[in-house]
C-alpha cells in the first residue's frame, strides 16, 4: 500500500518540482499582477505571465517538442513567422498615416529615435560580450515594438525570445515613466512651448498611395523587412481604400485579437527556468532600458538639429515620439508639452513620428537580418 502511494506521488508534478520553477511561477504571477492591477500592457503581459507559469509545471510537457500544445503554438505560429506579420496586418489597419503625410519631414524623427537600437547593439557586443545576433535582438528592444522584437529574436536568437519580448513590452508599459524625465532634461521650457504650424488637410488619394509607395520603396531597399512591411501596408490599404470595410474591420479587431492570444501564451512558455534564470537576463533588461533611453535622446537631438536648418521650428519633444510605442509615446509628448503650455496640442503632430517609428524599427530589424543571418 505504501509502495503504491509512493508510486502515485511520483506521477504527480509535486514530486518533480524544483526551486527554479517556483521562482518562474512568481515571475509569471508578477506579470499577471502588473497586467491586472497596474494595467501594464495587459493584452500581452497577461497571457505571457500565464504562459510562463504553465511552462514551468513539471511533467505537464506543454513545451515538449512535437507533442506539447504550447510548443505547437510556438512552432507553427512564431517559429514559422506567421503571427508577428499577422499582427502587423492589424496594426496597419489601425494606423492613420495622415499626420505623417501632412508633415513628411517628421519621418526623420521616426528614424532618429532608432539611435538607441544601434547604440545598444554596439554596447552589447563590444562591452558586454554578447554575440552579434544576440546583441541585435537586445538592441531592437529600444525600438519599443513588441512584434518586431519577437520577429527578429525568432530569426537571430530564439533563446532570448521570451526575455526580450517581456523586456520590450514592460518598457512599452513604462513609457510614461521612463520618457518624461529625459524629455525635460533634454529640452528647455521655451523649446517645449514651440507650437507646431497647422497641418494641411491630407487627401484621400494620398492616403491610398502612401501604403503602395511605401511597399515598393521599403521592400526594394530593405528586402528582409518584407514580411512585416508587406502585411502592415496591406492592412493600411484595407483601411484607406474604403472598399473592403469588412476586411479592414476584421484585421483590426477579430483577427488581431485572436493572434494576440496565440502570441503571448507561447512567448511566455519559452521562458523556462534554465533559460531565464541566468545573470545575462539582468544585463538584457538593463541594456533594453538603455536602448529605450538612448532612442528618446537621439530622437530629441535630431529634432533640435533639424531646427538648426529650418525656419519652421519643430517642437523637439516630438523626437521622443519616434519610438514606436503607439500611441503611448505620442500621448507622453502631448502631456509633457501641455505642462509647459497648456494650450499646446501636440498629440496629433506626435502621431507622425510615432507611426514613422514603427516603420523605422521594422527597417532596423530588416537591416540586422540582412547583415547577420
Amino acid at each position, binding site marked *: 500500500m505504501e509502495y503504491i502511494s509512493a508510486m502515485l506521488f511520483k506521477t504527480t508534478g509535486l514530486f518533480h518540482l524544483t526551486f527554479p520553477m517556483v521562482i518562474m511561477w512568481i515571475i509569471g504571477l508578477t506579470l499577471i499582477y502588473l497586467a491586472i492591477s497596474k494595467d501594464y500592457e495587459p493584452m500581452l503581459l497577461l497571457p505571457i505571465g500565464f504562459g510562463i507559469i504553465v511552462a514551468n509545471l513539471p511533467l505537464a510537457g506543454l513545451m515538449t517538442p512535437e507533442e506539447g500544445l504550447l510548443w505547437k503554438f510556438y512552432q507553427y505560429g512564431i517559429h514559422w513567422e506567421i503571427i508577428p506579420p499577422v499582427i502587423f496586418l492589424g496594426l496597419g489597419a489601425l494606423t492613420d498615416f495622415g499626420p505623417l503625410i501632412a508633415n513628411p519631414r517628421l519621418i526623420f524623427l521616426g528614424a532618429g529615435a532608432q539611435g538607441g537600437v544601434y547604440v545598444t547593439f554596439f554596447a552589447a557586443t563590444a562591452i558586454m560580450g554578447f554575440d552579434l545576433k544576440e546583441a541585435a535582438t537586445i538592441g531592437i528592444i529600444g525600438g519599443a515594438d513588441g512584434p518586431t522584437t519577437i520577429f527578429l529574436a525568432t530569426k537571430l536568437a530564439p533563446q532570448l525570445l521570451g526575455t526580450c519580448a517581456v523586456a520590450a513590452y514592460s518598457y512599452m508599459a513604462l513609457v510614461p515613466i521612463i520618457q518624461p524625465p529625459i524629455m525635460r532634461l533634454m529640452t528647455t521650457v521655451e523649446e517645449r512651448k514651440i507650437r507646431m504650424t497647422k497641418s494641411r488637410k491630407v487627401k484621400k488619394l494620398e492616403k491610398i498611395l502612401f501604403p503602395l509607395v511605401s511597399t515598393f520603396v521599403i521592400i526594394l531597399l530593405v528586402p528582409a523587412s518584407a514580411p512585416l512591411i508587406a502585411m502592415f501596408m496591406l492592412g493600411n490599404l484595407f483601411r484607406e481604400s474604403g472598399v473592403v470595410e469588412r476586411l479592414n474591420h476584421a484585421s483590426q479587431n477579430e483577427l488581431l485579437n485572436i493572434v494576440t492570444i496565440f502570441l503571448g501564451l507561447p512567448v511566455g512558455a519559452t521562458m523556462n527556468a534554465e533559460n531565464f534564470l541566468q545573470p545575462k537576463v539582468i544585463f538584457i533588461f538593463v541594456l533594453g532600458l538603455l536602448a529605450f533611453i538612448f532612442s528618446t535622446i537621439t530622437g530629441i537631438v535630431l529634432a533640435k538639429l533639424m531646427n538648426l536648418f529650418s525656419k519652421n521650428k519643430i517642437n523637439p519633444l516630438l523626437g521622443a515620439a519616434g519610438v514606436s510605442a503607439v*500611441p503611448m509615446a*505620442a*500621448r507622453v509628448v*502631448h*502631456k509633457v508639452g*501641455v505642462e509647459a503650455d*497648456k*494650450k499646446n*496640442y501636440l*498629440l*496629433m503632430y506626435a*502621431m507622425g513620428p510615432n507611426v514613422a517609428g514603427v516603420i523605422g524599427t521594422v527597417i532596423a530589424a530588416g537591416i540586422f537580418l540582412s547583415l547577420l543571418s
Partner: protein
Amino acid sequence: MSEDIVAPLAGKIIAINIEAGQKVEEDEEIFIIEAMKMETSIYAPCDGTIKAIKVKKGDSVEEDAILGTIE
C-alpha cells in the same frame, strides 16, 4: 465681436463645463475632448460671454470644428 471656439484636435467631446450665457475668463477650461484614449482640455480663447454651444456631450468632432462662440 464674437469669436469661434474651435476643436484643436479631432476627438469626442466628453464634458462641457459651460452653458450659453455664462461669463468665462480666458484660459478657463470649457470643454474636455477625448482623443487617442486621452483627455485633453480646451480653454476659452478670451474673456467673454458664451453665446452658443454647437456640440453635445458624446459628439465626435473633427479638427477645427466649431464647438461654440464666445463674445
